[in-house]
């Protein structure tokens, strides 16, 4: 039987992978995907917690699942807006590469 630790570690790993995507990739789209991974990793542990720590009624904490639901929604909205910005950026500068975005500095 998988234990809580299993799930937490997996979600942690996923989170780290997402973080890695942000830190290591230089294509904004990929970075964005990494961010999505992080959010979902969080979701995983949320659900895991809710399942492993059932409430007094012996049911999983559905509040957590609602939160997950919200997170997914927000993430979707974020993706929409984010991609819109990226598109606008690409139209203006013909690039999705972070190193081309350094006019504002110092």
């Amino acid at each position, binding site marked *: 039987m998988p234990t809580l630790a299993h799930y937490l570690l997996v979600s942690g790993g996923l*989170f780290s992978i*997402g*973080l890695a995507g*942000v830190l290591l990739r230089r294509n*904004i789209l990929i*970075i*964005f995907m990494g*961010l999505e991974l*992080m*959010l979902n*990793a*969080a*979701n995983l*542990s*949320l659900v*895991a*917690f*809710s399942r492993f*720590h059932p*409430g007094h009624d012996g049911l999983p*904490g559905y*509040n*957590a699942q*609602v*939160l997950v639901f*919200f*997170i997914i929604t*927000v993430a979707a*909205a*974020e993706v929409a*807006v*984010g991609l819109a*910005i*990226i598109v*606008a*950026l690409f*139209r*203006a*500068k013909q690039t999705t590469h972070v190193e081309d*975005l350094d*006019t*504002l*500095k110092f």
Partner: protein
Amino acid sequence: MVMISALALEICVVCVGILLLMADAFYVHADKRSLAYGGIFGLLMVFAMTFFIRPVPADYTGFYTNDDLGLLFKRFALLSTILTLVLSVEYAPTVERFIPGSKPGAGLGEFFVLPVFTCAGLMWMASASDFVMIFCALELVTISFYIQVAYMRKSTASLEAGTKYLILGALSTGFLVYGITWIFGMTGQTGLRGVSMVLGFVPQASQSALLFGIGLVLVALGFKVAAAPFQFWVPDVYQGAPTPVTAFLSVGSKAAGFVVLMRVIEPFLAVPEIETKLVAALQILAGLTLVYGNLAAMPQTNLKRLLGYSSIAHAGYLLVGVASVGSPAAGRAVVFYLLAYLLMTFLAFLVLVPVAKAAGGDDISDFNGLGRRSRGLALAMLISMLSLAGLPFTVGFIGKFFIFEAAMREQHYLLVAVGLVTVACGFYYYLKVIRAMYWQPAPADAPPVVVSPLTRIAAAVLAALILIVGIFPKPVLQILP
């Protein structure tokens, strides 16, 4: 007198926003500025409504609390939004230049409407007492800011700023969510009240997990309030964003961040060992923020960017206050400082916008000789800079005084020493502006600075408030929680 439910406030704000959208959609040919005026009017109405609400002492039942802290920050959000709209009107021509649109006023409508929705988000943040609520309100604010920062699509600076804010903001959101997850996991609660209730029973062993969660939430909020080392987006974004949005960011979202921060850490301070670690962490954040903001601001030449750094610096002072939560005065100090910060920052931006419009740039050197070119504006800028630097007889001084008083009560002497140095640095870079305005001669071809009456009124009111409250803060202190 008739009392209204606090929930009505946000609803009204949202309705104002929707009405404006409708108007924007249906009266295509009308002058878009009227939207802004409408928004200002509507929000003023809501602001008036806030005085018909009886705050109930904080009882974090459910998601929504309208204690007087929350109420105060609702007013705060409304005020900053109104001022942002005033700025937006002044700034509209620039926006028009930088968005694709054939007709005059194209795309301005949304520019005036979005702050209203942001305002609703800020107000919800002000009374959020549940992590879910916090998350949703925060995201509403954040996402609407993504849009506003990147609003001027034809200006690469604005887009770049938007992208940076987007990526880093999303990153912080990720941490926030993960942190909430862990706090939930350890307490099984999402409501702050619930958390504070079960916190006593959390086994010693899982405290580090709890701290892990708190730490990640702290990171996210630190990002919002521009605390070092999560502040790197600030100067770039402030410089690139449309100026009204910059002002809104630096005041509205920072203030909301602080109120959430204060609400979130409060339950955890009940546990001694968590409290000590938390305070230590806050002290270090405060110290780093002070040093980074003030030192890095000194070599700046661009006023907008300088204000970005200065907002980091003030976040530092505010964090000093937050780190001194032990003393009863700390909360009041932070709130008062935020109030002062609202006044002086918006005053600075109210002067910056017209001057930059006239000079075509927002470098400090564009202020050269303003003291002779346009006395009133220069005087206003003088007052705001003195207040930012924390000179007596301005509200900024009283704020700093409270902050350091609290810190010394808590005997954070090291922090106070750092503050001592940074205050001196602060004098240096704020005086640079005064120097430009009064020492330097005006360039020969300096165009006249035109200011709309609305801006003029707003600036006059702010300047007067800065001085009056700076000399006689008693009435303001009475309305503080």
